[in-house]
């Protein structure tokens, strides 16, 4: 099936070439980071995780969201998702790949990466994150590829795939749960020390991931002959709508507990994010626009007439994707580190090299996504004849 990725239109080649150029530039900056150290980023003694780890956290959510297609399709036999499920699985593959790369570019000593396997440490959540992320990556590669090749041959998928497919469902939940546990189990970090962190991660992931898939389906329909159909998009839109509302509800619960209890250690981080602290508030406009985007999108989608209009749906999906990206990709990590354990406020602003390296990682993910989706579209076209 790989040959499907090798021939395509001019637009396709331009896209692939463009992504390769971005990857190349990102790699050059990564070489600079390897040479100088992580000092070329904006991270500091207090905010010790920055843009990289934030992107990692956001993308774990995108990866986990494939389960919103896999679960209805395989467990509830919801046939409408038949055409889309493999798209979700391949989106998960590229998202997990980016997650792993973001962890690697964040390491101070990447050449010692294998120490995590040489000295396996079950009491560290990072060890378990490595286990579930790699497991989920391989599960989705194996499942997606085999189901697609069965479709190409016109035969039902092989029987041994079934248990792997069922296994991928708890794995999807586990990758985002374990990722939340990286943060929520740390004493003295009041912002993350909440039991709703994992549920909130999952809810916002099940909103942002499927929203992105809806947008991808629109793009595929515009540029290829591949149309997933109206029905599955509408079902996904409903999932996006409820997941957005659920994540907003969990956010409201957190705000209530924090500001009704008035415990400073929990309040100060949210004060920093939404109002600024000690005169410093680089993220204030971002956080409010994120909240506004998510609320607007929820309102737009909750009415059936809004959901059914594809322009409104597209707009809402863009709002949800970027709203969640700001929430997890900017606010979540910085917010946990500011103020620091000594209650000092040292802000974090990513640097240009840091952003370019991140773009390089995103370009690798989108390249893999482009190749995989090209194969899917090729196979679907061939089957249809």
């Amino acid at each position: 099936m790989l040959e499907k990725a090798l021939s395509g239109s001019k637009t396709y080649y331009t896209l692939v070439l463009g992504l390769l150029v971005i990857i190349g530039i990102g790699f050059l900056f990564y070489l600079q980071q390897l040479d100088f150290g992580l000092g070329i980023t904006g991270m500091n003694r207090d905010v010790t995780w920055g843009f990289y780890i934030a992107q990692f956290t956001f993308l774990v959510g995108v990866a986990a969201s494939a389960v919103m297609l896999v679960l209805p399709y395989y467990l509830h036999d919801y046939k409408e998702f038949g055409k889309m499920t493999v798209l979700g699985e391949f989106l998960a593959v590229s998202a997990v790949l980016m997650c792993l790369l973001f962890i690697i570019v964040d390491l101070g000593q990447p050449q010692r990466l294998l120490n995590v396997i040489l000295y396996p440490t079950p009491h560290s959540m990072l060890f378990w994150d490595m286990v579930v992320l790699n497991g989920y990556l391989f599960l989705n590669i194996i499942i997606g590829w085999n189901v697609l090749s069965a479709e190409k041959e016109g035969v039902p998928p092989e029987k041994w795939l079934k248990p792997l497919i069922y296994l991928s469902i708890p794995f999807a939940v586990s990758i985002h749960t374990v990722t939340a546990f990286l943060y929520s189990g740390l004493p003295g970090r009041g912002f993350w020390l909440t039991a709703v962190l994992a549920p909130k991660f999952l809810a916002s992931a099940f909103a942002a991931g499927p929203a992105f898939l809806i947008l991808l389906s629109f793009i595929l329909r515009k540029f290829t002959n591949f149309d997933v159909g109206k029905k599955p998009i509408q079902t996904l839109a409903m999932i996006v709508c409820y997941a957005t509302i659920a994540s907003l509800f969990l956010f409201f619960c957190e705000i209530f507990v924090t500001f009704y209890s008035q415990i400073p250690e929990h309040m100060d981080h949210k004060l920093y994010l939404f109002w600024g602290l000690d005169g410093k508030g680089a993220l204030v406009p971002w956080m409010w626009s994120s909240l506004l985007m998510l609320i607007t999108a929820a309102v737009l989608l909750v009415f059936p007439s809004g959901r059914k209009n594809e322009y409104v749906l597209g707009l809402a999906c863009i709002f949800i994707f970027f709203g969640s990206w700001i929430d997890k990709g900017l606010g979540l990590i910085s917010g946990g580190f500011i103020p620091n354990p000594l209650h000092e406020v040292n802000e974090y602003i990513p640097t240009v090299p840091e952003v370019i390296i991140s773009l390089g990682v995103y370009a690798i993910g989108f390249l893999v996504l482009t190749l995989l989706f090209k194969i899917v579209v090729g196979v679907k076209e061939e089957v249809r004849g």
Partner: protein
Amino acid sequence: MENSRRKFLKTAGYSVLGVAAGSMLIGITPRSSTGAAEQASGNPEYKSRDEALKAERWGLVIDTRKITARINRNMQRACHREHNVPDFVGKFGAKNHEIKWIWPTPFKNAFIEQDLQYISDHLKRTEIPVLCNHCNHPPCVRVCPTRATFKRESDGLVLMDYHRCIGCRFCMAGCPYGARSFNYRDPREAIEELNPDFTLRTKGVVEKCNFCAERLARGEAPACVEASNGALTFGDLEDSSSDIRKLLAEYHAITRKAELGTLPSVFYII
């Protein structure tokens, strides 16, 4: 063709699963609980010297009434010289990359959880020294994915293996005291006078106070204690006749963020 490729993928898939399952099993099997530390102490090649100072659990008592700005300066200078701590702030003005093992800070920052409404004039005026607490239940050790930071079973010190650390900085997120620093760049560029008796770090690893484990092994007191003009007392917390236990019996002392249950080994007499 298609078939053989699918077979290959199938086999590859199974072998990957096997490796994943295998590594999970290794992870679950109980191994030495402290890794590097135990391997080192269990190895007959590493014997401690006769003159080495020993304790069941090292501890430190800081008498804040005796602390002055001069003592704070002297302690930090002695510590940072002893341990080849780079001065990025002085050399490059890089506040972001600052590395510090022991440093003075206002009482309200060191003890954010205490009632700060009407603190004494002395506490308002004087900065007090903060450093790694060498917790009995260290969160940094719990979160480290490679056991590069570990609690030494023999004396309770929380130490680092700079050659194993992958630089993920999870320990820095885990530490509730802000005691850890990261080498955002090559430390060699900012060390004025190299101490050949202590290790140099590379860029990309975390470091922190080691309670002068290398000096204790030579029978010497920690550098900060030596430079403290009597404001700092160190000793064995498990030995009821030790100097620090006598101090703790006589005065009420507090630890930082006691509510987190980390059980610090550094005590403050207020």
